[in-house]
């Protein structure tokens, strides 16, 4: 985390946990010596004593257990079910599509995904839910599970996204004239990059407990990011009113996007069983089911043609993206949108054409995962640019200096970047702090002197990224999010929001922001549980919008509360608010989202201000590659992130560190192979994320270029680090070995194939097919 000293390899002793290094917009680096008065994590003590209650920790006396029967065909017609007559079916409850009271649809952007496949309906992917079961105990449930046999008639399956003809969404962005630009270039570099699935791997599996209500509705307690998404799904699928459907977030053990949309499905399943059994029903996935059946990061194939001049100026980019949506639409159009807008990287190129499409394959639907399309295309963009630099014999830092957006730059959606453009600054800070050029000279010398005796090779790599903050385009304005702030009768300050805590620090920074605005100590501000019966819809906890958008709304609400109370009492808020509560009674401020000034986007032409603000990040990775086995050790990553304003240094840094390690895993060891449309890596024994021994030394520098249109200046941090880590590692691997890996993960198998000419593994993300599928 240090700027000043070189990353030390000393392992003797440890200093006290250093305070993060923050670079404010003006002035010197606020370094290690500075104290922060940021508060301790609000729910920290509960988490540290094992008393925080996650969904499976909740006890509901008399609850039954639920399970899901899932397809083992990738594409088939569901003909019916056989129930083994030797089993006593009165001991269990069976729910099929015929039992769904509302629409058999998981509410989403497009109405195409059923809650359960109906008899006669079309199964579109392996693990697709067909039937639900509930029983009083797990042994009975297990036995019943083995005695239901779906009958299916297989249909031809599509696994190759390049061969699929069903398009969920497509975009075509154009700036200038890319054909002319390419023709005028001194050099054209071509490259295709492929990324496979990535699993969010929250350590707490998806879980829901549904409890039937006396009013005919249902209360769902669960692990989730977006209470109102689940709420909307329950209303639609169960034909319930807003009051009858109640969603309560339990302590949630990680989300990363994996609990953005999937909870709607599992919530509906648990609710259906609860309504049929008239009992609480626990639907707690085990890891195998979660890995096999829930959403993953979209695989993609990204092709680049880059026209560049000898002096390093990029004059044209022509980019094509094919994204694999899996079997249903879910959030794919929005993922593709972000992937498309970010696909050129953070560079002001005069001629750009980006064409993208997301298609159907008969694999489980893909969904949100930190970065939401940008990590895929920015891996491609940065690796492409690093290859261009290589072709020109130019430093990766220098080529970026010559092309990175500056103030006034114009993006492929024709957005003018009017403020907060810090691509140059994060680039320079990263290069300087890591001593990048000096390291490159050293690795080049080592490479030149390499002999067969050498066991390992070191390399250093750099990447730059941008990430639009908040929802794309008019998404935020259309949502109309609300937060509320209450001064209660008994003088307490309470925040009411649907924004959820899942480790990133919502429950800490929200009281912190409000307390600061009201002039109160942090402990005086409470935050109500995320229960749709009590809190307004503040929008989903996604898209790096929580600190920027919802936090910003809260600050405004606090200002209004302060003004109101001070106007009544004539005294400063801290001195008078309790009296005001007693005398005047409670005050509730509802703050609705107001579109940021001057931000306009045309959905029809897909032009305009795609995002109100952009975050910028650079990463420098150092790797060591074993020359015998091509195993990659990522030794360190230095991350520089412009987050607008650091609200809580330790929490902010924690986001950068965690996101960076997820990006390192994406680049190196996280891999899903598929056969016949089914994930083969469906247990923790086979889906691998980095352990503490694999994790690099992580150093973070936080830069502040505040977003002027929110009171606190924050631009979001959750996803930005995810965009930049993987290409930095890939560049470092090239620096060490001389080979460019175009596919993620850059597994030892891929590196060895590139180095030694042995057969490479299959391309990532595409299912193989069993040689002889026996007839049914």
């Amino acid at each position: 985390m240090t700027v000043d000293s070189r990353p030390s390899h000393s392992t003797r002793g440890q200093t006290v946990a250093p305070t993060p290094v923050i670079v404010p917009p003006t002035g010197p680096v606020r370094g290690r010596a500075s104290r922060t008065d940021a508060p301790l994590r609000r729910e920290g003590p509960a988490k540290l004593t094992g008393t925080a209650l996650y969904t499976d920790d909740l006890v509901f006396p008399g609850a039954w257990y639920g399970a899901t029967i899932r397809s083992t065909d990738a594409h088939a017609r569901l003909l019916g079910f056989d129930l083994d007559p030797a089993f006593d079916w009165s001991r269990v409850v069976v729910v099929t599509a015929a039992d769904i009271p509302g629409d058999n649809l998981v509410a989403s952007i497009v109405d195409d995904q059923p809650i359960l496949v109906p008899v006669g309906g079309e199964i579109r992917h392996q693990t697709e839910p067909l039937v639900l079961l509930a029983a009083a105990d797990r042994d009975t449930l297990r036995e019943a599970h083995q005695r239901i046999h779906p009958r299916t008639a297989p249909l031809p399956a599509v696994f190759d996204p390049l061969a699929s003809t069903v398009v969920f969404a497509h975009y075509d962005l154009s700036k200038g004239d890319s054909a002319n630009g390419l023709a005028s270039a001194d050099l054209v570099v071509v490259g295709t990059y492929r990324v496979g699935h990535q699993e969010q791997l929250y350590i707490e599996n998806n879980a829901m407990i549904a409890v039937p209500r006396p009013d005919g509705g249902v209360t769902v307690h669960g692990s989730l990011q977006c209470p109102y998404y689940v709420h909307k799904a329950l209303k639609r699928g169960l034909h319930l009113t807003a009051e009858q459907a109640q969603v309560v977030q339990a302590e949630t053990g990680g989300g990363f996007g994996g609990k953005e949309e999937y909870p709607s499905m599992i919530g509906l399943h648990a609710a259906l069983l609860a309504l049929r059994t008239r009992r609480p029903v626990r639907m707690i996935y085990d890891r195998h089911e979660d890995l096999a059946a829930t959403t993953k990061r979209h695989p993609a194939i990204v092709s680049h043609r880059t026209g560049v001049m000898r002096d390093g100026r990029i004059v044209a980019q022509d980019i094509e993206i094919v994204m694999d949506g899996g079997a249903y639409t879910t959030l794919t159009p929005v993922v593709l949108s972000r992937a498309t807008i970010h696909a050129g990287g953070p560079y002001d190129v005069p001629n750009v054409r980006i064409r993208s499409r997301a298609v159907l394959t008969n694999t489980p639907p893909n969904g949100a995962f930190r970065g939401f399309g940008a990590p895929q295309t920015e891996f491609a963009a940065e690796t492409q640019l690093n290859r261009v630099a290589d072709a020109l014999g130019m430093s990766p830092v220098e080529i970026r200096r010559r092309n990175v957006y500056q103030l006034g730059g114009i993006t492929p959606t024709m957005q003018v970047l009017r403020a907060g453009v810090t691509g140059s600054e994060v680039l320079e800070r990263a290069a300087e702090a890591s001593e990048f050029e000096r390291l490159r000279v050293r690795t080049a010398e080592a490479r030149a002197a390499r002999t067969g005796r050498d066991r390992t090779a070191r390399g250093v790599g750099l990447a730059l990224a941008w990430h639009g903050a908040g929802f794309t385009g008019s998404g935020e304005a259309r949502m109309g999010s609300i937060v509320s702030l209450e001064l209660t009768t008994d003088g307490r300050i309470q925040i009411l929001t649907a924004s959820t805590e899942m480790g990133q620090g919502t429950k800490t920074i929200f009281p912190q922001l409000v307390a600061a605005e009201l002039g109160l100590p942090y402990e005086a501000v409470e935050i109500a549980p995320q229960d749709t019966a009590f809190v307004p819809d503040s929008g989903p906890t996604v898209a790096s919008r929580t600190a920027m958008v919802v936090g910003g709304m809260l600050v405004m609400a606090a200002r209004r509360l302060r003004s109101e109370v001070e106007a009544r009492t004539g005294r400063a808020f801290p001195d008078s608010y309790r009296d005001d509560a007693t005398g005047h009674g409670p005050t509730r401020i509802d703050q609705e989202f107001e579109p940021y000034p001057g931000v306009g986007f045309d959905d029809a032409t897909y032009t305009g201000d795609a995002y109100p603000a952009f975050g910028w990040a650079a990463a420098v990775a150092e790797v060591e590659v074993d020359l015998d086995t091509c195993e990659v050790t990522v030794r360190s990553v230095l991350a520089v992130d412009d987050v607008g304003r650091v609200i809580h240094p330790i929490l902010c840094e924690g986001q950068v560190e965690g996101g960076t390690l997820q990006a390192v895993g994406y680049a190196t060891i996280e891999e899903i192979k598929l056969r016949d449309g089914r994930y083969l890596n469906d247990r923790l024994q086979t889906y691998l994320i980095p352990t503490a021994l694999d994790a690099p030394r992580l150093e973070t520098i936080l830069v502040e270029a505040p977003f002027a249109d929110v009171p606190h200046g924050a631009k979001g941090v959750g996803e930005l680090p995810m965009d930049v880590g993987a290409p930095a590692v890939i560049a470092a691997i090239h620096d060490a070995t001389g080979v460019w890996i175009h596919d993620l993960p850059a597994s030892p198998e891929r590196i060895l194939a590139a180095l030694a000419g042995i057969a490479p593994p299959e391309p990532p993300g595409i299912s193989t097919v069993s040689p002889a599928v026996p007839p049914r």
Partner: protein
Amino acid sequence: MTYRLVVNGAPTEVTVPGMRRLLDVLREDLGLTGTKEGCGEGECGACTVLIDGEVAVSCLVPVCQVDGRVITTVEGLGAGPPGDGSRTVGGAPTVDELGPLQRAFLQTGGAQCGICTPGMLIAGHAFLASAAEPTDAAIRESIAGNLCRCTGYTKIVEAIALAARWRDEGGSVAPAGEPG
């Protein structure tokens, strides 16, 4: 069958099938839900407990194999040494109820979503009790069987190192006025 264990200092009897996982005995039969199930395969470490002071993943331990053994869970790590049952019961815990390792996690930001935290605390506690030198490498090896997806491990390692420093500076309690 009836098995007799000492759990967090308290002699405990359970009458359950012998192949019941210790994890299920703790969570369901004894209501100690602090120990978490992340995978059921022994890969994630979220279910880590101490058996006679040694770390084990309780999802792979059948209760018949811990008859007569001493078990420590996260609920047993409090202001006092584990197993002395000194934690107060009921209500949200206060910072003062935290043991030094927990306090170190709070200070460094070692817990984000918190689901890996109980297992990490147990592994960290075992490391500190071993009195091994708290190098970066040694700490990382001691938690190599505990997966975390949120933190990148940096602040967890810092927390364990910080707790070791407090221990070595004399006393099991963090110095007063420690910066928050």
